[in-house]
Protein backbone atom coordinates (compact mmCIF):
# COMPACT_ATOMS: atom_id res chain seq x y z
CA UNK A 1 0.00 0.00 0.00
CA UNK A 2 2.81 2.42 0.89
CA UNK A 3 4.68 1.46 -2.28
CA UNK A 4 1.53 2.11 -4.31
CA UNK A 5 1.05 5.45 -2.59
CA UNK A 6 4.56 6.63 -3.38
CA UNK A 7 4.52 5.41 -6.98
CA UNK A 8 1.23 7.26 -7.61
CA UNK A 9 2.61 10.35 -5.87
CA UNK A 10 5.76 10.22 -8.01
CA UNK A 11 3.75 9.90 -11.24
CA UNK A 12 1.57 12.86 -10.27
CA UNK A 13 4.63 14.96 -9.48
CA UNK A 14 6.11 14.04 -12.87
CA UNK A 15 2.88 15.01 -14.65
CA UNK A 16 2.84 18.28 -12.77
CA UNK A 17 6.43 19.05 -13.72
CA UNK A 18 5.79 18.27 -17.42
CA UNK A 19 2.60 20.35 -17.33
CA UNK A 20 4.50 23.31 -15.85
CA UNK A 21 6.99 23.09 -18.76
CA UNK A 22 4.09 23.09 -21.23
CA UNK A 23 2.40 26.09 -19.58
CA UNK A 24 5.66 28.01 -19.50
CA UNK A 25 6.50 27.17 -23.11
CA UNK A 26 3.05 28.24 -24.33
CA UNK A 27 3.46 31.60 -22.61
CA UNK A 28 6.83 32.10 -24.31
CA UNK A 29 5.54 31.45 -27.83
CA UNK A 30 2.41 33.55 -27.29
CA UNK A 31 2.54 36.43 -29.79
CA UNK A 32 2.26 39.99 -28.48
CA UNK A 33 4.76 41.67 -26.18
CA UNK A 34 3.11 42.28 -22.77
CA UNK A 35 5.28 45.35 -22.10
CA UNK A 36 4.17 46.93 -25.38
CA UNK A 37 0.56 46.22 -24.49
CA UNK A 38 0.99 47.79 -21.06
CA UNK A 39 2.70 50.96 -22.24
CA UNK A 40 0.86 51.59 -25.48
CA UNK A 41 2.23 52.16 -28.96
CA UNK A 42 3.65 55.62 -28.22
CA UNK A 43 6.12 54.34 -25.57
CA UNK A 44 9.80 54.84 -26.33
CA UNK A 45 12.08 51.84 -26.87
CA UNK A 46 14.04 52.78 -23.71
CA UNK A 47 10.95 52.83 -21.53
CA UNK A 48 9.81 49.46 -22.86
CA UNK A 49 13.29 48.04 -22.25
CA UNK A 50 13.28 49.38 -18.68
CA UNK A 51 9.93 47.78 -17.99
CA UNK A 52 11.12 44.48 -19.46
CA UNK A 53 14.05 44.53 -17.04
CA UNK A 54 11.83 45.47 -14.13
CA UNK A 55 9.52 42.53 -14.90
CA UNK A 56 12.43 40.16 -15.41
CA UNK A 57 11.49 39.46 -19.03
CA UNK A 58 15.09 40.03 -20.18
CA UNK A 59 16.46 37.16 -18.08
CA UNK A 60 17.43 33.83 -19.65
CA UNK A 61 14.51 31.40 -20.11
CA UNK A 62 15.75 28.91 -17.54
CA UNK A 63 15.97 31.61 -14.89
CA UNK A 64 12.52 32.94 -15.75
CA UNK A 65 11.03 29.44 -15.49
CA UNK A 66 12.70 28.85 -12.16
CA UNK A 67 11.63 32.21 -10.71
CA UNK A 68 8.06 31.65 -11.88
CA UNK A 69 7.88 28.12 -10.49
CA UNK A 70 9.31 28.95 -7.06
CA UNK A 71 7.08 32.03 -6.95
CA UNK A 72 4.05 29.90 -7.80
CA UNK A 73 4.89 27.34 -5.14
CA UNK A 74 5.40 29.97 -2.44
CA UNK A 75 2.27 31.94 -3.38
CA UNK A 76 4.27 34.88 -4.74
CA UNK A 77 2.93 34.93 -8.30
CA UNK A 78 3.87 38.46 -9.31
CA UNK A 79 1.61 41.36 -10.25
CA UNK A 80 -1.09 41.34 -12.91
CA UNK A 81 -0.03 43.29 -16.03
CA UNK A 82 -3.51 44.77 -16.50
CA UNK A 83 -4.63 45.46 -12.95
CA UNK A 84 -1.28 46.02 -11.20
CA UNK A 85 -2.38 44.04 -8.16
CA UNK A 86 -0.74 40.84 -6.88
CA UNK A 87 -1.94 37.82 -8.88
CA UNK A 88 -2.42 35.87 -5.66
CA UNK A 89 -4.95 38.48 -4.53
CA UNK A 90 -6.90 38.19 -7.80
CA UNK A 91 -6.84 34.40 -7.55
CA UNK A 92 -8.01 34.48 -3.95
CA UNK A 93 -11.01 36.62 -4.88
CA UNK A 94 -11.89 34.42 -7.86
CA UNK A 95 -11.50 31.13 -5.96
CA UNK A 96 -13.90 32.40 -3.29
CA UNK A 97 -16.55 32.32 -6.04
CA UNK A 98 -15.50 29.37 -8.20
CA UNK A 99 -14.84 26.89 -5.40
CA UNK A 100 -18.26 27.26 -3.73
CA UNK A 101 -19.86 27.20 -7.20
CA UNK A 102 -18.09 23.96 -8.15
CA UNK A 103 -18.87 22.39 -4.77
CA UNK A 104 -22.58 23.27 -4.90
CA UNK A 105 -22.70 21.89 -8.47
CA UNK A 106 -20.92 18.70 -7.41
CA UNK A 107 -23.25 18.15 -4.43
CA UNK A 108 -26.34 18.90 -6.56
CA UNK A 109 -25.28 16.53 -9.33
CA UNK A 110 -24.48 13.71 -6.91
CA UNK A 111 -27.77 14.24 -5.07
CA UNK A 112 -29.71 14.01 -8.34
CA UNK A 113 -27.64 11.34 -10.06
CA UNK A 114 -27.20 8.56 -7.51
CA UNK A 115 -30.88 8.21 -6.55
CA UNK A 116 -31.86 8.44 -10.25
CA UNK A 117 -29.33 5.78 -11.26
CA UNK A 118 -30.41 3.59 -8.36
CA UNK A 119 -34.07 3.99 -9.25
CA UNK A 120 -33.46 3.26 -12.95
CA UNK A 121 -31.41 0.16 -12.13
CA UNK A 122 -34.03 -1.14 -9.71
CA UNK A 123 -36.74 -0.67 -12.38
CA UNK A 124 -34.50 -2.15 -15.07
CA UNK A 125 -36.25 -2.77 -18.40
CA UNK A 126 -39.45 -1.03 -17.24
CA UNK A 127 -40.90 2.27 -18.45
CA UNK A 128 -39.45 4.27 -15.54
CA UNK A 129 -35.97 3.06 -16.47
CA UNK A 130 -36.26 4.08 -20.13
CA UNK A 131 -37.86 7.39 -19.21
CA UNK A 132 -35.19 8.45 -16.71
CA UNK A 133 -32.38 7.35 -19.02
CA UNK A 134 -34.01 9.20 -21.92
CA UNK A 135 -34.06 12.36 -19.81
CA UNK A 136 -30.39 11.71 -18.91
CA UNK A 137 -29.51 11.44 -22.62
CA UNK A 138 -31.09 14.84 -23.25
CA UNK A 139 -29.25 16.25 -20.22
CA UNK A 140 -25.93 15.07 -21.67
CA UNK A 141 -26.72 16.55 -25.08
CA UNK A 142 -27.72 19.93 -23.68
CA UNK A 143 -25.00 22.60 -23.78
CA UNK A 144 -24.77 24.08 -20.29
CA UNK A 145 -24.87 27.67 -21.55
CA UNK A 146 -28.19 27.03 -23.33
CA UNK A 147 -29.56 25.52 -20.13
CA UNK A 148 -28.29 28.64 -18.33
CA UNK A 149 -30.18 30.91 -20.74
CA UNK A 150 -33.37 28.86 -20.30
CA UNK A 151 -33.00 28.88 -16.49
CA UNK A 152 -32.70 32.66 -16.40
CA UNK A 153 -35.74 32.90 -18.66
CA UNK A 154 -37.84 30.59 -16.50
CA UNK A 155 -36.77 31.88 -13.07
CA UNK A 156 -36.27 35.58 -13.72
CA UNK A 157 -37.76 36.90 -16.97
CA UNK A 158 -40.91 34.82 -17.36
CA UNK A 159 -42.29 35.43 -13.82
CA UNK A 160 -41.80 39.14 -14.39
CA UNK A 161 -43.37 39.16 -17.88
CA UNK A 162 -46.26 36.94 -16.86
CA UNK A 163 -47.69 39.72 -14.69
CA UNK A 164 -48.66 41.57 -17.85
CA UNK A 165 -50.35 38.49 -19.33
CA UNK A 166 -52.26 37.43 -16.24
CA UNK A 167 -55.35 39.54 -16.92
CA UNK A 168 -55.61 38.65 -20.64
CA UNK A 169 -57.19 35.51 -22.00
CA UNK A 170 -55.70 33.32 -24.72
CA UNK A 171 -52.75 30.98 -24.55
CA UNK A 172 -50.31 33.22 -22.65
CA UNK A 173 -52.99 34.36 -20.25
CA UNK A 174 -53.68 30.69 -19.54
CA UNK A 175 -49.99 29.99 -18.98
CA UNK A 176 -49.74 32.92 -16.60
CA UNK A 177 -52.73 31.75 -14.55
CA UNK A 178 -51.68 28.10 -14.55
CA UNK A 179 -48.16 28.77 -13.31
CA UNK A 180 -48.94 31.83 -11.21
CA UNK A 181 -48.09 30.15 -7.84
CA UNK A 182 -44.70 29.08 -9.22
CA UNK A 183 -44.10 32.47 -10.80
CA UNK A 184 -44.91 34.36 -7.61
CA UNK A 185 -42.60 32.00 -5.72
CA UNK A 186 -39.77 32.70 -8.20
CA UNK A 187 -40.46 36.43 -7.90
CA UNK A 188 -40.28 36.16 -4.15
CA UNK A 189 -36.96 34.26 -4.49
CA UNK A 190 -35.53 37.15 -6.52
CA UNK A 191 -32.67 35.12 -8.02
CA UNK A 192 -30.32 37.42 -9.93
CA UNK A 193 -29.90 36.81 -13.70
CA UNK A 194 -26.18 37.38 -13.38
CA UNK A 195 -23.40 39.18 -11.53
CA UNK A 196 -22.09 38.61 -8.03
CA UNK A 197 -22.71 40.96 -5.08
CA UNK A 198 -19.63 39.71 -3.15
CA UNK A 199 -19.52 37.66 0.05
CA UNK A 200 -19.14 40.83 2.12
CA UNK A 201 -22.78 41.76 1.34
CA UNK A 202 -23.85 38.74 3.35
CA UNK A 203 -24.25 35.03 2.80
CA UNK A 204 -27.82 34.98 1.44
CA UNK A 205 -27.44 37.40 -1.51
CA UNK A 206 -24.10 35.88 -2.50
CA UNK A 207 -25.45 32.32 -2.25
CA UNK A 208 -28.51 33.29 -4.31
CA UNK A 209 -26.25 34.52 -7.10
CA UNK A 210 -24.66 31.05 -7.28
CA UNK A 211 -27.88 28.98 -7.39
CA UNK A 212 -28.76 29.23 -11.09
CA UNK A 213 -25.11 28.89 -12.25
CA UNK A 214 -24.68 25.83 -10.05
CA UNK A 215 -27.83 24.21 -11.47
CA UNK A 216 -26.62 24.91 -15.02
CA UNK A 217 -23.22 23.37 -14.21
CA UNK A 218 -24.70 20.38 -12.40
CA UNK A 219 -27.17 19.19 -15.05
CA UNK A 220 -24.83 17.57 -17.61
CA UNK A 221 -22.70 16.12 -14.81
CA UNK A 222 -25.76 14.65 -13.12
CA UNK A 223 -26.93 13.10 -16.38
CA UNK A 224 -23.59 11.37 -16.99
CA UNK A 225 -23.29 10.26 -13.37
CA UNK A 226 -26.82 8.82 -13.34
CA UNK A 227 -26.02 6.69 -16.39
CA UNK A 228 -22.76 5.46 -14.86
CA UNK A 229 -24.46 4.64 -11.55
CA UNK A 230 -27.17 2.69 -13.38
CA UNK A 231 -24.82 0.65 -15.59
CA UNK A 232 -22.39 -0.04 -12.73
CA UNK A 233 -25.29 -1.30 -10.62
CA UNK A 234 -26.68 -3.44 -13.43
CA UNK A 235 -23.31 -5.05 -14.01
CA UNK A 236 -22.97 -5.90 -10.31
CA UNK A 237 -26.56 -7.14 -10.03
CA UNK A 238 -25.59 -9.91 -12.45
CA UNK A 239 -22.84 -11.20 -10.13
CA UNK A 240 -23.03 -14.50 -8.26
CA UNK A 241 -22.87 -13.00 -4.76
CA UNK A 242 -25.95 -10.91 -5.52
CA UNK A 243 -27.80 -14.06 -6.54
CA UNK A 244 -26.63 -15.70 -3.32
CA UNK A 245 -27.90 -12.80 -1.25
CA UNK A 246 -31.25 -12.92 -3.07
CA UNK A 247 -31.39 -16.74 -2.61
CA UNK A 248 -30.91 -16.24 1.12
CA UNK A 249 -34.20 -14.38 0.97
CA UNK A 250 -32.99 -10.80 1.27
CA UNK A 251 -35.39 -8.37 -0.42
CA UNK A 252 -34.15 -6.89 -3.71
CA UNK A 253 -33.97 -3.31 -2.41
CA UNK A 254 -31.91 -4.36 0.59
CA UNK A 255 -29.51 -6.28 -1.66
CA UNK A 256 -29.09 -3.22 -3.84
CA UNK A 257 -28.49 -0.95 -0.89
CA UNK A 258 -26.25 -3.25 1.13
CA UNK A 259 -24.24 -5.16 -1.47
CA UNK A 260 -24.53 -3.62 -4.91
CA UNK A 261 -24.33 0.11 -4.24
CA UNK A 262 -21.06 -0.09 -2.35
CA UNK A 263 -19.35 -2.02 -5.13
CA UNK A 264 -20.85 0.20 -7.80
CA UNK A 265 -19.20 3.20 -6.16
CA UNK A 266 -15.82 2.44 -7.79
CA UNK A 267 -16.79 3.40 -11.35
CA UNK A 268 -18.93 6.22 -9.97
CA UNK A 269 -15.90 7.55 -8.12
CA UNK A 270 -13.82 7.37 -11.31
CA UNK A 271 -16.33 9.46 -13.20
CA UNK A 272 -16.62 11.94 -10.31
CA UNK A 273 -12.84 12.40 -10.49
CA UNK A 274 -12.85 12.79 -14.26
CA UNK A 275 -15.76 15.20 -14.06
CA UNK A 276 -13.76 17.58 -11.94
CA UNK A 277 -11.82 18.62 -15.03
CA UNK A 278 -15.09 19.05 -16.98
CA UNK A 279 -16.49 21.08 -14.11
CA UNK A 280 -13.52 23.46 -14.33
CA UNK A 281 -14.07 23.74 -18.09
CA UNK A 282 -17.74 24.33 -17.44
CA UNK A 283 -17.01 27.25 -15.12
CA UNK A 284 -15.32 29.13 -18.00
CA UNK A 285 -18.59 29.12 -19.95
CA UNK A 286 -21.04 29.36 -17.06
CA UNK A 287 -19.18 32.18 -15.32
CA UNK A 288 -19.23 34.05 -18.60
CA UNK A 289 -22.92 33.34 -19.09
CA UNK A 290 -23.75 34.69 -15.60
CA UNK A 291 -21.04 37.40 -15.42
CA UNK A 292 -19.54 35.85 -12.29
CA UNK A 293 -16.00 37.10 -11.57
CA UNK A 294 -14.65 33.60 -10.79
CA UNK A 295 -11.55 31.75 -11.98
CA UNK A 296 -13.07 30.73 -15.32
CA UNK A 297 -14.06 34.26 -16.29
CA UNK A 298 -10.79 35.61 -14.94
CA UNK A 299 -8.65 33.26 -17.04
CA UNK A 300 -10.79 33.94 -20.13
CA UNK A 301 -10.37 37.70 -19.72
CA UNK A 302 -6.66 37.38 -18.90
CA UNK A 303 -6.13 35.39 -22.10
CA UNK A 304 -7.89 37.97 -24.25
CA UNK A 305 -6.03 40.82 -22.49
CA UNK A 306 -2.66 39.03 -22.84
CA UNK A 307 -2.21 39.21 -19.06
CA UNK A 308 0.28 36.35 -19.28
CA UNK A 309 1.32 36.27 -15.68
CA UNK A 310 -2.28 35.74 -14.59
CA UNK A 311 -2.90 33.11 -17.29
CA UNK A 312 0.22 31.18 -16.31
CA UNK A 313 -0.67 31.02 -12.64
CA UNK A 314 -4.38 30.28 -13.07
CA UNK A 315 -3.79 27.55 -15.67
CA UNK A 316 -1.13 25.99 -13.48
CA UNK A 317 -3.47 26.14 -10.50
CA UNK A 318 -6.26 24.43 -12.46
CA UNK A 319 -3.88 21.72 -13.69
CA UNK A 320 -2.64 21.22 -10.13
CA UNK A 321 -6.25 20.84 -8.98
CA UNK A 322 -6.99 18.24 -11.68
CA UNK A 323 -3.86 16.22 -10.90
CA UNK A 324 -4.47 16.31 -7.13
CA UNK A 325 -8.11 15.24 -7.54
CA UNK A 326 -7.08 12.36 -9.79
CA UNK A 327 -4.42 11.32 -7.28
CA UNK A 328 -7.00 11.30 -4.49
CA UNK A 329 -9.38 9.24 -6.64
CA UNK A 330 -6.61 6.74 -7.44
CA UNK A 331 -5.75 6.38 -3.78
CA UNK A 332 -9.42 6.00 -2.86
CA UNK A 333 -9.74 3.10 -5.30
CA UNK A 334 -6.86 1.35 -3.61
CA UNK A 335 -8.72 1.72 -0.33
CA UNK A 336 -11.90 0.37 -1.95
CA UNK A 337 -10.31 -2.40 -4.00
CA UNK A 338 -7.16 -4.04 -2.62
CA UNK A 339 -6.44 -5.75 -5.99
CA UNK A 340 -5.42 -2.37 -7.43
CA UNK A 341 -2.67 -1.84 -4.88
CA UNK A 342 -0.24 -4.01 -6.80
CA UNK A 343 1.91 -1.91 -9.14
CA UNK A 344 0.65 -2.14 -12.73
Amino acid sequence: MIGYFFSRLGLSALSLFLASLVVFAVMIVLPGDPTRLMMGISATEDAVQALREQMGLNLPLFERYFTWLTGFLTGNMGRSYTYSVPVSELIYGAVSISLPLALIALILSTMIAIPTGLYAASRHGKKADSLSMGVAQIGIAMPNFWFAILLVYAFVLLPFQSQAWAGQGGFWGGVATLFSPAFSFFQWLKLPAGGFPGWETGFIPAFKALILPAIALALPQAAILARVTRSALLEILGEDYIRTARAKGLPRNLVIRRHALRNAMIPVLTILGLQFSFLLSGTIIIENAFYLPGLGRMVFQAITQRDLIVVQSVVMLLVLAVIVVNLIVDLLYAVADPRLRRPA
Partner: protein
Amino acid sequence: MALPNPNITVLPTRDVWAMATRSPAFVTGLILTSIILLLGLISLVWTPYDVSLVTIAERLKTPSHSHLFGTDHFGRDILSMIMVGARNSIAVALVAVGIGVIIGVPLGCWAAARGGLIDASLMRGNDVVFAFPALLSAVMITAIFGPGAVNAIIAIGIFNIPVFARVARAGAMAIWPRDFILAARAAGKSRMQITLEHILPNMMHLLIVQGTIQFSLGILAEAGLSYLGLGAQPPSPSWGRMLAEAQTMMSIGPHTALFPGLAIVISVLGLNLMGDGLRDVLDPKLSRSK
Protein backbone atom coordinates in the same frame (compact mmCIF):
# COMPACT_ATOMS: atom_id res chain seq x y z
CA MET B 1 -6.07 3.09 -15.20
CA ALA B 2 -6.45 1.99 -18.82
CA LEU B 3 -6.48 -1.73 -18.19
CA PRO B 4 -6.83 -3.80 -21.37
CA ASN B 5 -10.42 -4.85 -21.83
CA PRO B 6 -10.57 -8.66 -22.07
CA ASN B 7 -14.08 -8.51 -23.52
CA ILE B 8 -13.14 -7.06 -26.87
CA THR B 9 -14.94 -9.03 -29.51
CA VAL B 10 -13.84 -9.72 -33.03
CA LEU B 11 -16.74 -9.11 -35.43
CA PRO B 12 -16.97 -8.46 -39.16
CA THR B 13 -18.28 -4.97 -40.00
CA ARG B 14 -21.22 -6.33 -42.05
CA ASP B 15 -22.64 -8.24 -39.06
CA VAL B 16 -22.21 -5.21 -36.83
CA TRP B 17 -24.31 -3.10 -39.20
CA ALA B 18 -27.04 -5.74 -39.39
CA MET B 19 -27.15 -6.00 -35.59
CA ALA B 20 -26.99 -2.25 -35.03
CA THR B 21 -29.97 -1.49 -37.26
CA ARG B 22 -32.03 -3.73 -34.97
CA SER B 23 -31.21 -1.50 -31.97
CA PRO B 24 -33.88 1.19 -31.42
CA ALA B 25 -31.32 3.57 -29.90
CA PHE B 26 -29.07 3.29 -32.95
CA VAL B 27 -31.92 3.82 -35.42
CA THR B 28 -33.31 6.85 -33.51
CA GLY B 29 -29.81 8.30 -33.37
CA LEU B 30 -29.28 7.65 -37.05
CA ILE B 31 -32.51 9.48 -37.93
CA LEU B 32 -31.69 12.51 -35.74
CA THR B 33 -28.14 12.73 -37.08
CA SER B 34 -29.40 12.39 -40.65
CA ILE B 35 -31.78 15.33 -40.18
CA ILE B 36 -28.90 17.59 -39.16
CA LEU B 37 -26.61 16.22 -41.88
CA LEU B 38 -29.33 16.76 -44.47
CA LEU B 39 -29.93 20.36 -43.29
CA GLY B 40 -26.20 21.03 -43.65
CA LEU B 41 -26.03 19.42 -47.08
CA ILE B 42 -29.10 21.27 -48.42
CA SER B 43 -27.63 24.55 -47.18
CA LEU B 44 -24.78 24.06 -49.65
CA VAL B 45 -27.18 24.61 -52.54
CA TRP B 46 -30.26 26.29 -51.04
CA THR B 47 -31.44 28.14 -47.93
CA PRO B 48 -34.88 29.78 -47.52
CA TYR B 49 -33.21 33.20 -47.24
CA ASP B 50 -29.71 34.59 -47.66
CA VAL B 51 -28.06 34.30 -44.21
CA SER B 52 -26.38 37.69 -44.56
CA LEU B 53 -29.63 39.40 -45.58
CA VAL B 54 -30.34 42.02 -42.92
CA THR B 55 -33.94 43.31 -42.90
CA ILE B 56 -34.41 45.54 -39.87
CA ALA B 57 -38.15 45.89 -40.57
CA GLU B 58 -38.48 42.12 -40.07
CA ARG B 59 -36.46 41.93 -36.84
CA LEU B 60 -37.39 39.54 -34.00
CA LYS B 61 -40.43 38.11 -35.82
CA THR B 62 -41.88 35.04 -34.10
CA PRO B 63 -42.18 31.81 -36.16
CA SER B 64 -44.61 32.13 -39.07
CA HIS B 65 -45.20 30.79 -42.61
CA SER B 66 -42.65 33.11 -44.21
CA HIS B 67 -40.03 32.50 -41.45
CA LEU B 68 -40.56 29.01 -39.99
CA PHE B 69 -38.22 29.61 -37.01
CA GLY B 70 -38.71 33.40 -36.92
CA THR B 71 -36.04 36.07 -37.37
CA ASP B 72 -33.23 37.39 -35.17
CA HIS B 73 -32.44 40.94 -34.02
CA PHE B 74 -31.11 41.83 -37.50
CA GLY B 75 -34.15 40.37 -39.25
CA ARG B 76 -32.15 37.38 -40.53
CA ASP B 77 -34.00 34.11 -41.08
CA ILE B 78 -33.17 31.76 -38.16
CA LEU B 79 -33.86 28.54 -40.12
CA SER B 80 -31.37 29.56 -42.82
CA MET B 81 -28.77 30.43 -40.16
CA ILE B 82 -29.28 27.06 -38.45
CA MET B 83 -28.82 25.24 -41.76
CA VAL B 84 -25.54 26.99 -42.50
CA GLY B 85 -24.54 26.61 -38.83
CA ALA B 86 -25.08 22.84 -39.14
CA ARG B 87 -22.52 22.74 -41.94
CA ASN B 88 -20.06 24.65 -39.76
CA SER B 89 -20.58 22.46 -36.68
CA ILE B 90 -20.32 19.21 -38.64
CA ALA B 91 -17.20 20.33 -40.49
CA VAL B 92 -15.39 21.44 -37.33
CA ALA B 93 -16.27 18.32 -35.32
CA LEU B 94 -15.58 15.92 -38.20
CA VAL B 95 -12.15 17.32 -39.02
CA ALA B 96 -11.30 17.41 -35.31
CA VAL B 97 -12.16 13.69 -35.06
CA GLY B 98 -10.03 13.11 -38.18
CA ILE B 99 -7.04 14.77 -36.52
CA GLY B 100 -7.51 12.58 -33.44
CA VAL B 101 -7.75 9.38 -35.49
CA ILE B 102 -4.89 10.12 -37.89
CA ILE B 103 -2.41 10.99 -35.14
CA GLY B 104 -3.82 9.16 -32.11
CA VAL B 105 -4.47 5.70 -33.56
CA PRO B 106 -0.94 5.15 -34.95
CA LEU B 107 0.51 6.37 -31.64
CA GLY B 108 -1.67 3.98 -29.65
CA CYS B 109 -0.86 1.06 -31.96
CA TRP B 110 2.81 1.87 -31.78
CA ALA B 111 2.73 1.98 -27.97
CA ALA B 112 0.95 -1.39 -27.85
CA ALA B 113 3.28 -3.01 -30.39
CA ARG B 114 6.56 -1.86 -28.82
CA GLY B 115 5.68 -1.68 -25.13
CA GLY B 116 8.40 -0.72 -22.65
CA LEU B 117 9.81 2.78 -22.62
CA ILE B 118 7.95 3.98 -25.75
CA ASP B 119 4.64 2.88 -24.27
CA ALA B 120 5.39 4.40 -20.86
CA SER B 121 6.48 7.77 -22.23
CA LEU B 122 3.54 8.02 -24.65
CA MET B 123 1.10 7.26 -21.86
CA ARG B 124 2.75 9.83 -19.60
CA GLY B 125 2.42 12.43 -22.35
CA ASN B 126 -1.25 11.48 -22.56
CA ASP B 127 -1.73 12.03 -18.84
CA VAL B 128 -0.22 15.51 -19.12
CA VAL B 129 -2.63 16.48 -21.91
CA PHE B 130 -5.55 15.09 -19.87
CA ALA B 131 -4.54 17.24 -16.91
CA PHE B 132 -5.43 20.39 -18.86
CA PRO B 133 -9.17 21.09 -18.79
CA ALA B 134 -9.94 20.70 -22.51
CA LEU B 135 -12.01 23.82 -22.98
CA LEU B 136 -9.46 25.96 -21.14
CA SER B 137 -6.74 24.88 -23.53
CA ALA B 138 -9.03 25.35 -26.51
CA VAL B 139 -9.70 28.90 -25.32
CA MET B 140 -5.93 29.44 -25.01
CA ILE B 141 -5.22 28.06 -28.48
CA THR B 142 -7.91 30.12 -30.19
CA ALA B 143 -6.83 33.21 -28.25
CA ILE B 144 -3.19 32.70 -29.26
CA PHE B 145 -3.74 32.01 -32.95
CA GLY B 146 -6.84 34.16 -33.28
CA PRO B 147 -10.50 33.13 -33.23
CA GLY B 148 -11.95 31.31 -36.24
CA ALA B 149 -13.23 27.98 -37.49
CA VAL B 150 -9.80 26.60 -38.48
CA ASN B 151 -8.24 27.30 -35.09
CA ALA B 152 -11.30 25.88 -33.35
CA ILE B 153 -10.73 22.66 -35.33
CA ILE B 154 -7.08 22.51 -34.24
CA ALA B 155 -7.95 23.28 -30.61
CA ILE B 156 -10.59 20.54 -30.46
CA GLY B 157 -8.55 18.11 -32.58
CA ILE B 158 -5.52 18.21 -30.29
CA PHE B 159 -7.62 16.87 -27.44
CA ASN B 160 -8.93 14.04 -29.55
CA ILE B 161 -5.38 12.71 -30.06
CA PRO B 162 -4.82 11.25 -26.55
CA VAL B 163 -8.39 9.89 -26.48
CA PHE B 164 -7.88 7.86 -29.67
CA ALA B 165 -4.35 6.90 -28.62
CA ARG B 166 -5.76 5.43 -25.40
CA VAL B 167 -8.58 3.53 -27.11
CA ALA B 168 -6.27 2.18 -29.84
CA ARG B 169 -3.68 1.10 -27.28
CA ALA B 170 -6.21 -0.65 -25.06
CA GLY B 171 -7.77 -2.37 -28.08
CA ALA B 172 -4.44 -3.45 -29.55
CA MET B 173 -3.14 -4.71 -26.20
CA ALA B 174 -6.19 -6.95 -25.90
CA ILE B 175 -5.62 -8.43 -29.37
CA TRP B 176 -1.84 -8.94 -29.25
CA PRO B 177 -1.92 -12.00 -26.90
CA ARG B 178 -4.41 -13.84 -29.18
CA ASP B 179 -3.39 -17.07 -30.89
CA PHE B 180 -3.93 -15.80 -34.43
CA ILE B 181 -1.42 -13.02 -33.76
CA LEU B 182 1.06 -15.62 -32.54
CA ALA B 183 0.48 -17.54 -35.77
CA ALA B 184 1.10 -14.39 -37.81
CA ARG B 185 4.34 -13.77 -35.91
CA ALA B 186 5.40 -17.37 -36.45
CA ALA B 187 4.77 -16.83 -40.16
CA GLY B 188 7.42 -14.11 -40.01
CA LYS B 189 5.24 -11.02 -40.29
CA SER B 190 6.62 -7.77 -38.87
CA ARG B 191 4.85 -5.88 -36.09
CA MET B 192 3.87 -3.23 -38.61
CA GLN B 193 2.28 -5.82 -40.93
CA ILE B 194 0.46 -7.48 -38.05
CA THR B 195 -0.86 -4.13 -36.85
CA LEU B 196 -2.15 -3.20 -40.30
CA GLU B 197 -3.54 -6.61 -41.28
CA HIS B 198 -4.86 -8.01 -37.99
CA ILE B 199 -4.93 -5.48 -35.15
CA LEU B 200 -6.54 -2.52 -36.91
CA PRO B 201 -9.39 -4.38 -38.65
CA ASN B 202 -10.27 -6.16 -35.40
CA MET B 203 -10.62 -3.00 -33.35
CA MET B 204 -12.34 -0.90 -35.99
CA HIS B 205 -15.63 -1.02 -34.09
CA LEU B 206 -13.99 0.39 -30.94
CA LEU B 207 -12.73 3.31 -33.00
CA ILE B 208 -16.13 3.86 -34.61
CA VAL B 209 -17.90 3.99 -31.22
CA GLN B 210 -15.28 6.39 -29.85
CA GLY B 211 -15.53 8.38 -33.08
CA THR B 212 -19.25 9.03 -32.62
CA ILE B 213 -18.65 10.08 -28.99
CA GLN B 214 -15.84 12.46 -29.92
CA PHE B 215 -17.93 13.79 -32.80
CA SER B 216 -20.72 14.75 -30.40
CA LEU B 217 -18.25 16.23 -27.90
CA GLY B 218 -16.72 18.19 -30.79
CA ILE B 219 -20.09 19.72 -31.64
CA LEU B 220 -20.58 20.74 -28.00
CA ALA B 221 -17.04 22.14 -27.81
CA GLU B 222 -17.48 24.11 -31.05
CA ALA B 223 -20.75 25.52 -29.73
CA GLY B 224 -19.02 26.50 -26.47
CA LEU B 225 -16.12 28.18 -28.26
CA SER B 226 -18.36 30.13 -30.61
CA TYR B 227 -20.59 31.08 -27.65
CA LEU B 228 -17.47 32.70 -26.16
CA GLY B 229 -16.82 34.41 -29.52
CA LEU B 230 -13.86 32.21 -30.42
CA GLY B 231 -15.39 30.01 -33.13
CA ALA B 232 -16.46 30.85 -36.69
CA GLN B 233 -16.53 34.63 -37.07
CA PRO B 234 -19.42 36.81 -38.29
CA PRO B 235 -21.08 36.96 -40.76
CA SER B 236 -20.71 33.16 -41.00
CA PRO B 237 -23.46 31.83 -38.67
CA SER B 238 -22.71 29.36 -35.87
CA TRP B 239 -25.07 27.85 -33.32
CA GLY B 240 -23.02 28.94 -30.31
CA ARG B 241 -22.84 32.57 -31.37
CA MET B 242 -26.54 32.62 -32.25
CA LEU B 243 -27.20 31.63 -28.62
CA ALA B 244 -24.79 34.25 -27.28
CA GLU B 245 -26.67 36.91 -29.29
CA ALA B 246 -30.05 35.48 -28.27
CA GLN B 247 -29.07 35.72 -24.59
CA THR B 248 -29.11 39.51 -24.80
CA MET B 249 -32.52 39.45 -26.56
CA MET B 250 -34.33 37.12 -24.15
CA SER B 251 -36.78 39.70 -22.81
CA ILE B 252 -38.02 40.70 -26.30
CA GLY B 253 -37.32 37.67 -28.50
CA PRO B 254 -37.05 34.43 -26.50
CA HIS B 255 -37.69 32.35 -29.67
CA THR B 256 -34.20 33.30 -30.93
CA ALA B 257 -32.68 31.13 -28.16
CA LEU B 258 -34.94 28.15 -28.77
CA PHE B 259 -33.98 26.77 -32.18
CA PRO B 260 -30.15 26.98 -32.12
CA GLY B 261 -30.20 25.19 -28.76
CA LEU B 262 -32.53 22.52 -30.11
CA ALA B 263 -30.24 22.02 -33.12
CA ILE B 264 -27.28 21.36 -30.80
CA VAL B 265 -29.30 18.98 -28.62
CA ILE B 266 -30.62 17.02 -31.63
CA SER B 267 -27.20 16.54 -33.21
CA VAL B 268 -25.44 15.59 -29.96
CA LEU B 269 -28.31 13.35 -28.87
CA GLY B 270 -28.37 11.64 -32.28
CA LEU B 271 -24.67 10.88 -32.22
CA ASN B 272 -24.73 9.67 -28.61
CA LEU B 273 -27.67 7.36 -29.30
CA MET B 274 -25.84 5.92 -32.31
CA GLY B 275 -22.75 5.36 -30.19
CA ASP B 276 -24.79 3.71 -27.42
CA GLY B 277 -26.61 1.46 -29.87
CA LEU B 278 -23.34 0.35 -31.42
CA ARG B 279 -21.75 -0.29 -28.05
CA ASP B 280 -24.68 -2.42 -26.90
CA VAL B 281 -24.24 -4.55 -29.99
CA LEU B 282 -20.48 -4.77 -29.68
CA ASP B 283 -20.03 -5.30 -25.95
CA PRO B 284 -21.49 -8.72 -25.14
CA LYS B 285 -20.96 -8.19 -21.42
CA LEU B 286 -23.33 -5.22 -21.37
CA SER B 287 -25.97 -6.84 -23.54
CA ARG B 288 -25.98 -9.95 -21.35
CA SER B 289 -26.99 -7.84 -18.35
CA LYS B 290 -30.06 -6.65 -20.26
